[in-house]
């Protein structure tokens, strides 16, 4: 996985016998060449997930896609192409990559530990063919020169070895330390992600303005948790949505783009605790009891007061309508099984209503400038007793008969035909949708990522290099001093280090070269 694994030869054929084969396979897997191939496989394996819709982010588009591609859809689904990042073959690639990484990093760590405790190897016999070679004469004795060199180099944090007539020094061990740290931190990152996936959970809930939410499983519209989460044991906080503020761009080419979302909530951190007022914005989640509450969406809930044939009110609340486009053309359903006879109402809510021949009724601006509802009333069997779970946003009209269609402005009432009841469009409320998430792996993941970044920078920016000094007495009684170096990372210039060494040797004294 890491650098300087040079000199690899073409892979020999696997030897006979299980043990031999395993050793061969392990050597192959931990070789840099295989690591490179796995890296590319990882890159390629990631691509389908960015092209095909994914169940994790957009299950509705996945269903559409499969429906529109009857040949390829089911096939791709079978091989996990709509859940790429949870697919076994994707996991196989990254797990093999990490095994390869560990298999490479472990032996290298041992080598590096040994290197950290050893002294630099002896200076080469001849320095004059090496990088940055310089020759000087010094009036001091050879031993004095070597002493000055090793003292000076040690003072500048070089690791120094001294022998007969030479000094060798090495620096930049942090490069390999950083390299190993980077790879170990990647393993830690993977473990953190897995930990978060096992112990984390997340849920989505729609809360109407003026109503509340308490953190139990039954209150969620959707909830998913890791394998090791106990869903009966969620943190017991609660909040009410007191007010939801939203503003849209009215000018410029981006007319209708959101400019502000803000949910003012009252939070009850635990049963019996003091409540506190908080504001949740996009980018500013509410943190409570180990969970984070994110504002992810909003919409309208028109208040539809429904009366049945006996004049009884069977619904007097805001009904959550789901937005279908950027201008909040929204759809929703009222089910009144207790009405006599049972009633079902399908509705279209338009905050700024318009009707044209092509698109039919639609909204032209997301703010409620000119709101209207288009309703379709049904009576008959709502199908709620069939035992099949039903969406609260869809009316199953298979066993129902349509009573009629009507559009209403705010304050208007529609008397259903044959005295079956009435519907009044009494007002507009808002709702906000929240994602509530708990991911215990995210802090370890962040720490691992920062360590990986730190290690990466060390491994790229620290230079591992050696310098040498060799001395020999000259005929004139002076000492001939040879200095040179070796850059062990191939991308950098050695000259500053040799210059540093020359400065050490000539400090405060005239030089003759």
């Amino acid at each position, binding site marked *: 996985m890491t650098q300087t694994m040079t000199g690899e030869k073409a892979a020999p054929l696997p030897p006979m016998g299980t043990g031999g084969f395993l050793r061969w396979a392990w050597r192959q897997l931990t070789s840099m060449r295989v690591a*490179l191939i796995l890296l590319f496989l990882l890159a390629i394996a990631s691509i389908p997930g960015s092209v095909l819709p994914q169940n994790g982010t957009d299950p509705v588009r996945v269903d559409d896609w499969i429906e529109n591609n009857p040949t390829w859809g089911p096939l791709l689904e079978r091989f996990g192409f709509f859940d790429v990042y949870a697919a076994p073959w994707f996991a196989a690639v990254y797990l093999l990559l990490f095994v390869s990484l560990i298999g490479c990093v472990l032996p290298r760590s041992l080598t590096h530990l040994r290197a950290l405790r050893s002294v630099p190897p002896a200076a080469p016999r001849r320095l004059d063919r090496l990088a940055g070679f310089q020759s000087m004469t010094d009036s001091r004795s050879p031993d004095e020169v070597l002493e000055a060199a090793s003292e000076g180099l040690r003072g500048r944090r070089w690791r120094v070895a001294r022998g007969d007539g030479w000094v060798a020094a090495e620096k930049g061990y942090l490069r390999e330390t950083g390299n190993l740290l980077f790879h170990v931190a990647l393993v830690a990152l993977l473990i953190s992600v897995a930990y978060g996936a096992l112990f984390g959970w997340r849920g989505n809930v729609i809360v109407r303005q003026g109503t509340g939410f308490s953190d139990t499983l039954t209150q969620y519209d959707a909830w998913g948790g890791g394998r090791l989460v106990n869903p009966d044991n969620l943190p017991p906080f609660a909040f009410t949505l007191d007010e939801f503020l939203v503003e849209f*761009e009215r000018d410029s080419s981006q007319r209708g783009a959101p400019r502000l979302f803000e949910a003012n909530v009252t939070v009850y951190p635990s049963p019996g605790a003091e409540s506190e007022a908080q504001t949740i914005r996009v980018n500013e989640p509410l943190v409570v009891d180990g969970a984070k509450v994110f504002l992810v969406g909003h919409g309208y809930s028109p208040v539809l007061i429904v009366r049945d044939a006996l004049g009884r009110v069977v619904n007097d609340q805001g009904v959550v309508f789901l937005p279908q486009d950027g201008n909040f053309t929204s759809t929703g359903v009222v089910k009144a099984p207790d009405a006599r006879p049972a009633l079902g109402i399908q509705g279209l809510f338009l905050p700024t209503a318009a009707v044209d021949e092509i698109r039919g009724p639609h909204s032209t601006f997301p703010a409620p400038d000119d709101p209207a509802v288009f309703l379709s009333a049904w009576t008959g069997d709502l199908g709620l007793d069939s035992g099949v779970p039903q969406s609260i946003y869809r009316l199953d009209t298979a066993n129902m008969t349509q009573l009629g269609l009507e559009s209403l402005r705010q304050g208007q009432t529609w008397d259903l035909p044959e005295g079956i009841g009435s519907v009044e469009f009494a007002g507009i409320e808002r709702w906000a949708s929240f994602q509530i998430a708990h991911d215990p792996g995210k802090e370890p993941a962040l720490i691992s990522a920062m360590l990986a970044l730190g290690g990466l920078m060390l491994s790229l920016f620290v230079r591992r290099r050696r310098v040498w000094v060799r001395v020999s007495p000259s005929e004139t009684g002076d000492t001939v001093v040879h200095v040179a170096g070796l850059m062990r990372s191939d991308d950098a210039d050695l000259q500053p280090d040799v210059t540093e060494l020359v400065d050490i040797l000539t400090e405060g004294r005239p030089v003759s070269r």
Partner: protein
Amino acid sequence: MSATTLAQWSNMAVYAAMFILIMALVAFAVSFAARGRRAGVTATSPQPVSVGAAGPMAKDNPEAPASAAVIDESGRRAGNIGMSLTWLATGVLLVGVVLRGIWAERVPWGNMYEFSLTMSLGILAVFLIVSLQRDVRWLGLPVVGITLLSLGLAVTVLYTEAAQLVPALKSWWLVIHVSAAVICAGAFTVSTMITLLYLWRDRAERRDVVRGMVAKLPDAQRLDTLAYRIIAFAFPLWTFAVISGAIWAENAWGRYWGWDPKETWAFITWVVYAGYLHARATAGWRGRRAAYISILGYVSLMINYFGVNLFVNSLHSYSGM
């Protein structure tokens, strides 16, 4: 000064910068051609006499064609003019970008138009910083060319009036995350230009036909090292951009990593450049193969920028178009 005027001044500065860059491009082209011709004369004439006096010298000392080229006064002067014009254009473009930011009352990278402007500035800045340390007049032509391409796309196809940001973008992380990404895009662009020149030069060296314009490039080894150094600078920064994006995503969307197409392609880019760094340290993969990998990395960066912004349904679709 009214807001509209500021926007107009910004646009004018961008157009002025483009105009200056076109002149710089011409200067660099003249420099390239002039020096190429000259180097061609010196390098080709001894070729038939394979043991000729100049032949082995030119081969053993890769500096020779470059230094011969430096002697060529007309190419040198044109190259210097190109560098000066590039400095000027960068200054003018900086003014345009800053005015755009003042006009919009935020950092000038809220949509694809602004991102392209700032990325162009990033490309030029990386080029000029490198030019402070070594003679890179040979790099002027491709770098200024791709900058002009980026600016041209920005003012024709990507232009938006967009003033304000959607709430999801109102965060300090926009400053941190996107500026890191912009600098990386600039650096990866410059390294890719160098890598393409490396492939050209390397092929000529392998066939032993280093003559014509290719002779004025530094030798392949140096090109490779320079491209590596820029990537070695940009790769940790890209890592940081991805990490800071994850932190922001955690705050805005409730998860730090969701395999959104933008995230996926940032990951792919990261993995491919990681592959490049490993390839450079692996026997049999150094040189051309590693160069191809780094070009693949750049391709995935561009897919992430154009493909994901314009054609894919992503949480990051901020093009404003």
